[in-house]
């Protein structure tokens, strides 16, 4: 197997995730797209770990999974809070930062 086939697949997943983050209006769907991005990164970590024949990539992939779990927990809590306050989780309606 080539290293690149994993990396390119990860790149494609990453870009799909970015597309989702940028276009999804629903907060939960945005979080799902973030998961795609994180998984793309994990594939990279593990592929490089295999490439260099050590376990560092695996170790950090485990860390990323743990952090992702935390991120989803907090992210969904925020989406819930937003839903409770506005009865909507549409990100395009949130524009209080407008200058």
């Amino acid at each position, binding site marked *: 197997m*080539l290293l690149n086939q994993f990396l390119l697949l990860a*790149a494609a997943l990453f870009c799909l995730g970015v597309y989702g983050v940028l276009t999804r209006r629903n907060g939960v769907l945005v979080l799902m797209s973030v998961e795609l991005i994180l998984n793309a990164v994990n*594939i990279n970590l593990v*592929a490089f770990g295999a490439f260099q024949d050590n376990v560092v990539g695996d170790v950090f992939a485990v*860390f990323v999974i743990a952090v992702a*779990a935390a991120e989803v927990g907090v992210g969904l809590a925020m989406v*819930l809070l937003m839903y409770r306050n506005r009865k909507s989780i549409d990100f395009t309606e949130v524009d209080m930062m407008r200058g």
Partner: protein
Amino acid sequence: MTLLAQVASDFNELTSSEVDIAQNIAFGMIAAVMLFSAFRTVTTANVVHAALYLVIVLAGVAALFILLGSDFVGATQVLVYIGAIIVLFLFGIMLTKARLGDDESVESERRGMGALVGILLLVVMGYALVDTFENAELTFGEPEPIAYVPTEVTVGDVPTPVLEALPDVFAGLGDDDEVTISQADFDSLVPEVQRRVPGAEVFGNNKQIADSIFSQYIVPFEAVSVLLLAALIGAIVVARKE
């Protein structure tokens, strides 16, 4: 040695190039399914379907991990992502009372912009990757020769590090001579040699991962545990009703 290669060699005595073909076929199938599912995840109008497609992507990622010989990470992926995070997402969907059927309102009017950025990113990254790594091979080497030392061997089969570690035992012996490594000598090799008994093959790199996490990366590990605790408390504080 990856699981796939192991299975293949156990049952069919395939050559390494045949193993490689098997791996590539597996990869191709997994990749195709993953890309399709990922695409559907970010485009489908049905929120629940998006979550289910995500499950397929995550399972694909777990399969890739196993293909890459990282079975521990693969198992973690299945347990944490598919087992816990997806459930969390489904809860999120329910609690925000998203419509269960197709819901066109989840799509933004800025799809063009997102697609442009995504494609641009893919082109740049793809070019960089192809340019940098070209045809770099992933070699899951044959099992490390040093990792296997039976107690009765011919001297010619003994790996060099073992020869160097036990100069007294092998002194003056020719390559074809049979030699018995005493239990004491064998034990003294343990730091250098992965101790394996024939017939009880140890598989995977769990031991090394555990060693790394709890020695070299103990600080990040502790930091992550604190982070998880903070996220737990934070999520409760943010989400609870006043």
